[in-house]
């Protein structure tokens, strides 16, 4: 082995972009991305349910793809682009999806909702109107313990249809 190995560190300075804003913070090497977002940055829309990758409540975007924030260390996000539910809400990217969740009664306690929205947004971003089975499959990693899933599938499906209608209208205009 040649060269000098970087030393193992318990703390490090982390630089990344969160919801479009540059962030520089000292973090413990052992801190998860979910804890970093919630406790260091105060972005508590990212929820922690199971903390072992099963429930999906902590779903965020890392460099454009959804991931479990509980299964990634903050230290692994050096130089990365992270987007949370706060970022997606503020940008208006999912305003129609949020409205559809409201109309379809697709949430009760709301604990799973940020993760559901993050996961559904990724599927919707692929375009088209996915089959209900495809919506179920894409959301299969997100647990809801109160409304059940039909209303959530309805909301995602109706948003996809509305976006497709709008795209057709714009293409025809």
């Amino acid at each position, binding site marked *: *082995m040649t060269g000098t*190995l970087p030393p*193992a560190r318990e703390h490090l300075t982390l630089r990344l972009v969160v919801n479009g804003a540059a962030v520089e913070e000292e973090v413990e*090497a*052992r801190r*998860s991305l979910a804890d970093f977002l919630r406790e260091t940055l105060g972005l508590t829309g990212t929820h922690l349910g199971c*903390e*072992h*990758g099963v429930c*999906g409540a902590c*779903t965020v975007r*890392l460099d454009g*793809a*959804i*991931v*479990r924030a*509980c*299964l*990634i*260390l903050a*230290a*692994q996000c050096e130089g990365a682009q992270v987007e949370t539910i706060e970022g997606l809400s503020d940008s208006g990217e999912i305003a129609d999806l949020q409205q559809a969740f409201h109309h379809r009664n697709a949430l009760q306690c709301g604990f799973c909702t940020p993760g559901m929205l993050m*996961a559904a947004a*990724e*599927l919707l971003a692929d375009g088209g109107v996915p089959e209900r089975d495809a919506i*179920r*499959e*894409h959301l*299969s*990693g*997100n647990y809801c313990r109160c409304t059940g899933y039909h209303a959530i599938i309805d909301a995602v499906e109706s948003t996809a249809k509305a976006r497709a209608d709008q795209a057709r209208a714009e293409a025809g205009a």
Partner: protein
Amino acid sequence: MLAQHGEDARIIAGGQSLMAMLNMRLAKPSVLVDINGVPGLAELEHSGEDLRIGALVRYAQALRHPLLAISAPLLARALPHVAHAAIRNRGTLGGSVAFADPAAEMPACLLALGGAVEIAGLDGPRTVAADDFFHDLYETALAQGEMLTALRIPGHTPDRRVGFAEFARRAGDYALVGLAASARAVDGRLTEVRLVYFSVGATPVRARTAEAALEGAPLDALPLDAAVAALEDDLDPPTDIQASRDTRLHLAGVLLRQVAGQLTEPVA
């Protein structure tokens, strides 16, 4: 770093198993070596006759890759069953093989395809056949200070047949029982049959008696009853809170009939 820190150090790639273990305090390494920034490990490419899958190739990346369906149709069938979208975006095929969870799809697929594992260590690189890689529960041929660098899969040929099926209670859950299979179809008969079950023991398990029952059998008249009956000799699955031994054995037979149907059809 692995040599310097010994058993206290673990490699982290996708982290989709290791991070869960850390969170549950099932593993307490004092040093994590993050290989995500290591160049040259994220390629899926032809290497001689083989398909070579670098240690950092993620499930979602492999699923989107144009070579996958052509050169590894078994993986193309199996990967959609691996966990969920957010986990497939991050988890790696190599990590799954290195971790060797007996309920995971990738170790069984690698074994069914007669693949191999490329390993790097201070003593230089070596390659271990999948047949010799999985030793016991989470125990593999990887020695202290070594790292899996790539998976190798023999090139796909027109006579190659593959099959995959698993039974899970919910999409993305670990399977109660799963089966990955490959064979060749020569002169209307199956040969080189490999049936690899997962979630039935400490490692992926080849059902050698059932394989023997199908070896040389005509494609239009596979002796399925005999092959299913042979599973009694091949498998001794555990009873746990998910399912009993007998349920798993029954499901293993159901899956064998499904997968045998796939083996009789050419890969599209």
